[in-house]
């Protein structure tokens, strides 16, 4: 068990955000909570880079944003995966799995 949260690897956050949004449209806060819960606090995620990632992905056309009403009836910005985002996620996922597998192969005792 790690005592200190790990730093985020470059590009990892984008994949995490896209993956999170496959659950459906959600606002930034929900994305933030969801990622934290699913990583069990192992990875240290600040919200500032998260929001930067959301807007960057919007600019790239991988996600689309729209204003909507939150669960408690407040105006919130919802993000939704676009078709291009879905394709991008699939590609990134494959790269990630290969990468992880390669790392595991090295770490695995022979």
């Amino acid at each position, binding site marked *: 068990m790690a005592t200190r949260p790990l730093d985020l690897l470059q590009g990892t956050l984008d994949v995490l955000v896209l993956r999170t949004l496959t659950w459906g449209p959600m606002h930034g806060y929900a994305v933030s909570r969801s990622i934290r819960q699913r990583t069990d606090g192992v990875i240290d995620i600040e919200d500032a880079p998260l929001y930067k990632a959301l807007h960057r992905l*919007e600019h790239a056309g991988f996600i689309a944003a*729209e204003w909507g009403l939150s669960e408690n009836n407040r105006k919130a*910005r919802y993000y939704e995966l676009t078709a291009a985002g879905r394709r991008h996620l699939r590609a990134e996922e494959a790269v990630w799995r290969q990468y992880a597998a390669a790392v595991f192969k090295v770490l695995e005792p022979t």
Partner: protein
Amino acid sequence: MRPPRRRFFRLPWRTRRQIRADLETELSFHLDMRVEALVALGLSPDAARAQALREFGDIDDARRYIGAVDTDTEAAQRRSEYMSDLWQDITYAARKLRATPAFTAAAIVTLALGIGANTAIFSVVDHVLLQAPPFPPANRLVRLRFTQQGHGDVATPMDIVDYPTQAKDFVGFSIIDSWTANVVLENGDAEQVRGVQVGANLFDLLRIKPLHGRFFREGEDKAGASNVVVLSEQLWRRDFGGDESAIGKTVRINARSFTIIGVVPAEQRYPFTAEAWTPRVFTAQELSDDSRGARWMSVLGRVKDDVSIDAANTEVRLISQSMEHRFPETYRERRAQILSVQEFTVGDLKKPLYIILTAVVLVLLIACANVANLLLVRASARETEMAIRSALGAGRGRLVRQLMTESVMLSVVGAAIGIGLAKLGMTVLLGHVPPGLVLVQRASIDSRTLAATTLVALAAGLLFGTLPAMQVAGRGVADALRGGGRGAQGKAITGRAKRAIVIGELALAVTLLSGAGLLLRSFNRLMAVDPGFRTESVLSMKMALPQSKYDSTGHRIFVRQLLERAAAVPGVGSVAMTNFVPLDGGGYGFTFNVRGRTYARPSDEPDAEVRQVTPAFFNTMGVPIVRGRGIQDGDAPGAPTVYLVNQTFVKRFFPTENPIGQFIRLGWGGDPNEPYCEIVGVVGDVHGEGLGDAPLPTVYASLAQHPFSSLTLLVRTSASPASLATPLRSIVHDLDREVPVFSVQTMAERVASSVGRQRFYTTLVALFAAVALVLAAVGLYGVIAYAVSQRTHELGIRVALGATSQRISTMVIREGLALTAVGAGLGIVAALAAGSVVASLLFGVTPRDPITLTGVVVVLAAVAMVASWLPARRAARVDPLVAMRGE
């Protein structure tokens, strides 16, 4: 909950400030949610906020970063959305236009006709009227125009002495004396070209440079100078193969040798059709006061650049007044004024061209009106579609843009076909240009014209295409939807607009039709005129004997040999020669006096046209000898000179006396000792100047007694006249190959070409009138058909209540005829008002000719009947059940 998706509904574009505000909203939502959650876990609000901010990280950095990214995103989206909207508009418009092929075809054909005709005609007019001649500054190059006692006059050799010495406002003047040049080529063949004898300074006044060689030097127009000639680029290329070595060669012209010194660029010839220029060398006798009465030339001048045209005009007028003062008899009421070269050349072309231009602009107007109407009809039919799109979030701008796209697409396709039509039209047009309209033949399609015309059509399409969109958007979505395409107020407005447009179209068509009708009737009248001579089976052939080579004996021998040999050609009935053939534009006249009558002043002496003929002339031409005898073989040198006169001459000068046996003295060469000669016969009148012009008093003399170098051989034949051309030509060639033969035509062809201009104008205007009529009929049909389709419900009720189909169709036709009546009324008023414009082009018909106007109304009524009957038939077949259920 699912938020709305941006792709389908568009929010307004965000400014930089809005982007920042949105970001703050988003961030504060996040922090608030986090604070609430932490407070719920038991933290104090302050501690909760502190933790939320800590978890967030560098919030200012995020603000800067996100602000920049979002601004960029926004711009990119704006661009892509615009492009996709445009593409959407185009594909949508194409789909919509394909879905209504009748409308699309009608609109495109209408536009193509309007644009095509307009471009073709405008190119011609632009070329002739609007483009300055290539001698800048063109308005400073002027011709002197003389009038005497209200009649047009020309220049005497002394004018080229008087004006240059007295005028201070001019750079200079040059004489222009037309000169028939028989150029003998190296292979010995002769060619007759349009030559001109000019002052040595002509080309300096024109301010042009020779293509090769040089132009005249000072003094080359003085007696004693050697013979030099300047050729046109055309002649130089045609006859000298464009070889520069032609410069310096000698060429035989009118049996004299000339040295070729230069070549004039093709487009800079002046006079515009000249081929050879040579200096005019005046004799001492010509440059004396005796020649002030002899007038046959013209004068070109250039006004100094720093002098106003008005001042120059005043100066020449004052000079002409002072000359009258010095020579009150000869120059009685003789005035000079200046006229720009362009004005001078275009002169009598101007009016017909402007009339044709007006006709074509009317056609374009009608075409635009038609397209406008079609678009309006279409827009009304699409009100529901527009309302639905508006309700789904399409803004007014978006709807306008959509309709604009359709209009532009129509205009572009119409214009493309129009260009094709214009090209075709120009070819046909130029193929039928009568020979007199030389300038027109140089015209070619003009891109500026095309652009201008297309813009007009485009503007019309845009204007009327977007009007309905404004209306729909203005009325509001709910109203339009509720209206469901029926009975709303906006409809009444478009309905009125449509009716007004159709009435306007019909009125324009009537105006054009009356113009065309008048021209057609006038042309028929003209063609019905008996020319006074036989036109069928007479062949005419012009030739010119070089004066220096043929003295009067040689001339007589040539004529006798030619007549003998021509008579021997199989198929030839009779042969004659004359100096000026009727309807050919040539001819001259002299003053004369009758023995026993006294005239107070020399200027009171009457004048008559004079023609020289051989004995068989009257027989060959079918001109009757009314009294006395004709010219006989015995009327030769040595025998007393005899004259024949025509009936007009008798009516004018011997209304009560017997002309036969009277003696008259013609001023042949201004010799006061010319003998009085007897009138021995009276012959029928011949329309020699033009079918539309009254015959002039004419004296016929014997060619043998008065030889003339320019000759026309006339041959009457039972065979096809054209088949004689070759044998006759070779006879002349055998007699003397230096005698050029030209203008071989039957008399029927001469009659036809004498009315070539009228035929040309008439055909054009008639063509435009026909197009206008068709377009107006289509417009009327469109409006009535649309009205019927809108009233299906009402008509159904009428049928259900017992209206017969007869009655329904009468009602519909009556509506069409009511529109037609108003349009025709307005059109007739316009036609009457415009009548004076065409009056000068008419012959034997007044501009208010009731038969023409009645005919126009009848034609229009018939066309209107058909245009309203078609929709009426549909209205009459309305099934009440279907009609009422259909709503």
